[in-house]
Every structure is written in C-alpha cells, then in structure tokens.
C-alpha cells in the first residue's frame, strides 16, 4: 500500500509537469494549428532566463516569474515574426500543412544553438527552493517531498488562472472563438491576429513554468544538451494527443494519465521501459481512440 501511494504521488507530480507542457502545445495548436516542436527549446531558453535571474536576485519565485515573462515574450515574437509570415506565404500547395512544423523543428535547433553560445554547454544548477527530501509517515519515508507538493500546487494555481481567463473574461471568449472558427470570429469583430499572439504568449509562459518545475523536480542540474527537455516535449506531445489536442482539460488529464501510468509501469513492471512506455501509450491511444479521450470525432466544428 505504501509503495502504491508513493508511486501514485510520483506519477501525479511528473504528470502535472507533462500537463503543463501539453497545455503549451495545445494553446499553440488551438491558436494557429501548428505543432510547435520548438517548445522544448523555448522551455529550455526560459529556464536559462530563470537561471540567469537567480544570479542577480536570489529568489526562485522571482526567477520563475521572470522566466514566464521571458518565455511569453519569446513565444509572442516567434508568432509575430515567423509564424504569421510563414502561414500567410505557405497557405496553399503541398508545403502548406508542413512548412510551419518543419520551421518549428529548425527553430528548435536555432534556439538550442543560441543558448549554447550564450551559456555554454556545461551543467548549471537551479537549486530547488524547497526540500526534495520526502515526507515521513511513521517509519516510512515517501519520495513525495515538499518540492513535489509545491509543484502540484503551482500547476493547480496556473490551471485555475488559465481557466479563469478562458471562461470568465472577454479575451478568453475571443481566444476560444478564434480557435473554433477564425473566420467567424473575425466577422464578429475579434482581432484574430492579436488573439493568436496572445495564445502563443500564454503557451510560452506555461512552457517556462514546465521547464523550471522539471529542473526542480530533479536535483536542479541541467545543461543546454539536457535530454530531459526533449523527453518533456515528447511527454507533453503524447499527453496533448491523449487529451485530444484541442482541449485544455484534455491536456491536463492526458498529462496526469501519462505520468501515473508511466510511474506504475516503472515501479511494477520494469524501469527499463522508461523510454518505451510513453510511446506504447501513444500508439494505443492512436489505435483505439485517435481523437483522444476528450476529442470529438470529425475535428473542429463551427
């Protein structure tokens, strides 16, 4: 029983981080219909911005905030300078659907190259702000720690903020309308271009939080060549697909499901399945329910 709870809590924590990454992928997908592979590079860049901030102000929470703002600005800049132009120029022909996606792959390399130029390739450290030593129940010590608890709380707070924006504000209404049908939204007076930039900015900020929490969930060390960020992108992408790619709630459920299932497979089956389990889950979802757990058959309407 103890091991079960331990495994579940580990799964929820990593699932919460996957959920954030999935959310950042979904936000971009909803606003521009692009799968943004550069998100791994953007999250890494934002994490380095957080690392740099810690040099000047020794507060993790300030660093997190600065990383979010930096992530949002970078993401908005990518949308305005690259994606908007690309989507306009490649609106027809065989290249139309593929060009933006290939561009994000290229951008991923550019971002990784740029941060290596700025910060070098060596390991750096962001000390987790809270203890990573697990809580003790009786004589048993859990892997679940104050830091992991904080991760879950931060993710929940961010989700609450995002759903407040989406459900209760007129800008949230514009974000949803532009995702369902940009043409119809324009006709109703929504400035779809600005709304798209905002979608990318929100995605960048969310990815930044995912990056910093990912580092804090481990021992705090990372580098420009960190494998963890590529895995974060893949996990986020798989979680987004499980959730149906369209839905914010779906992304969260997809992230949690992926985190929990992977955690149990590693604990109860074999930890050598670490790289295989997420892909098996992805393939199963694609075979059994390609529209995702919350996706509707036939794609978007309106």
């Amino acid at each position, binding site marked *: 029983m103890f091991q079960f709870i331990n495994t579940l809590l580990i799964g929820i924590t990593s699932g919460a981080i996957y959920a954030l990454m999935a959310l950042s992928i979904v936000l971009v997908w909803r606003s521009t219909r692009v799968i943004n592979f550069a998100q791994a590079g953007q999250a890494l860049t934002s994490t380095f911005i957080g690392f740099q901030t810690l040099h000047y102000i020794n507060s993790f929470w300030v660093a997190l905030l600065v990383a979010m703002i930096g992530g949002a600005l970078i993401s908005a800049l990518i949308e305005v300078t690259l994606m908007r132009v690309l989507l306009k120029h490649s609106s027809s022909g065989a290249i139309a659907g593929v060009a933006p996606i290939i561009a994000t792959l290229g951008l991923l390399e550019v971002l990784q190259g740029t941060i290596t130029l700025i910060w070098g390739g060596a390991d750096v450290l962001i000390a987790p702000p809270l203890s990573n030593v697990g809580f003790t129940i009786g004589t048993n010590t859990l892997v679940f720690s104050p830091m992991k608890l904080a991760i879950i709380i931060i993710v929940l707070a961010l989700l609450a903020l995002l759903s407040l924006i989406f459900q209760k504000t007129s800008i949230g209404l*514009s974000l949803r*309308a532009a995702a369902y049908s940009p043409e119809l939204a324009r006709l109703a*007076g*929504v400035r779809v271009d600005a709304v798209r930039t905002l979608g990318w900015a929100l995605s960048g900020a969310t990815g930044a939080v995912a990056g910093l929490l990912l580092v804090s969930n481990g021992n705090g060390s990372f580098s420009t060549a960190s494998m963890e960020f590529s895995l974060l992108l893949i996990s986020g992408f798989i979680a987004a697909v499980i959730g149906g790619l369209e839905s914010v709630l779906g992304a969260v459920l997809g992230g949690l499901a992926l985190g929990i299932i992977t955690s149990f497979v590693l604990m109860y089956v074999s930890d050598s399945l670490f790289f295989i389990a997420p892909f098996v889950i992805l393939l199963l979802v694609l075979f059994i329910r390609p529209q995702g757990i919350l996706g509707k058959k036939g794609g978007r309407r*309106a």
Partner: protein
Amino acid sequence: MSTNTNLLEAKDVNVAFGGLRALSKVNLAVGRNEVVGLIGPNGAGKTTMFNTICGIVTPDSGSLSFENQPIGWPATDELANLGIARTLQGVGLFPELTVIENVMMGAQKFARTGLFRASFGINGRDEKALKDRAHYALERVYSASLSNSHAGSLSYPDSKRVAIARALVSHPKLLLLDEPAGGLGAQDIEWLNRLISDLSGEMSVLIVEHHMDVVMSVCDRIYVLNFGEVISSGTPDFVRNDPAVITAYLGADAQ
C-alpha cells in the same frame, strides 16, 4: 438616391475566381435607414458581393465608401468598428459556446478593458456591461431565455434568431443579412418581416434572400444580379415587372 444620403456605396466592383468572372462592374448603394434587397438566381454572385464588402473576398478592382468616406476594402475584423454587422447563410454560430457567449462575441468592440487587464479578469464591470448588452440583444429577438443553452443544441429557427442578435449587439449602422428566411416556417418569416421593418428605423439593411415574399414586402429597393452583373434595380414593383428580371428567373420562354 442622391449620393450624399448613401451610407454604403460600392462602385465598379470586379471579382474573378481564376477564369470565372463572379462580379462584373457591380454598382450598389444603400441609403441611410433604407432596406435594400440583393436577389438573383443561384450562382448570380450575391454572396460574393457580401463577401467582398466583408473583406472575405478581395476584388480585382472597384471602390467602397461608407458614410461618404472611401474606406478601401476593410479587413473582416474592422467591420464591427466601422459599424457593419453581418449574419451568415445557415446559422454561423459557435456551437461549443453558450448563446450569451455567442452574442457577447459580437459586442467585443465595446470591451474597454486592455489586453493585460482582461487577461487577468480584473475589470468585472466591463464583463458585466458586455453581458447586459448581449442580454438586451437577445430580448430583442425573444431569445433571452436561451442565454445559457449551448448554441449547438438550439433549433434551427432559434439559431437564426441568436445569429441576428449577435449582429445587432454591435449597434451596426448597416446590417447585412444573408438569407435570413432560409429554412424558416411561415410564422418565423412573419416575425422576421416585422423585425426588419422595425430595424429600418435605426439602421440600414442589405439583404440577400431567395424568399420573394420577404424581399418584396420589406425592401425599399432591390438589385437583381445575374451572372455577376446587375441586370435591374429599383422599387419592388419596378423589379417585379422588369422583363430582364423575368427572363433571368424564368428563362427566355417567359417573354
């Protein structure tokens, strides 16, 4: 109609899709508080003309002025601010959103909250004002009780009413109605006729409609398009008796 009373004036509009000429030298004017009909057989170019005014189709040549000012060809998202609102053929609602949210979409031009403040839901008063406007527009089309239903779950006639409410909520100077009577029963059509007549006291209306009873009873003037050209224009009585119109609708044998 003298030029200085015109609200909207399109001149020499040409649109071609590949080799197909969709609109050819179309001239069209809508006066203030005037209800103008745009009719013609299927494929005559009526919706293309609407789409051109709405920035969905870019014409090859021609000019557009609104309130006697040349306005180029405005982008679709600029129409609401100019004072132009449009309903679409069919329904054209966001099925995933509620009825009140659908109507609030049309009132975005009244949202005074900046992007940052709106993102964090700071200005609740602004949100409430938009909701009140939307509620009032729904009352106008007798659909306030549907506020919290999902638009996708509405009956067809109810959807059409809500679509009209979304256009009205922006307080347009010019309302473009694209086949508003399509698919409606006699009772709803009667209601629609009364609504359009009422609206003409507050705004101008340009209407594309196949339902001749509606067009003939509510329009002050009518333009008839055929193969992308205006073949007749004038009062309903004039157009009804114009041999060119009769030929276009019923074929050469009608003469």
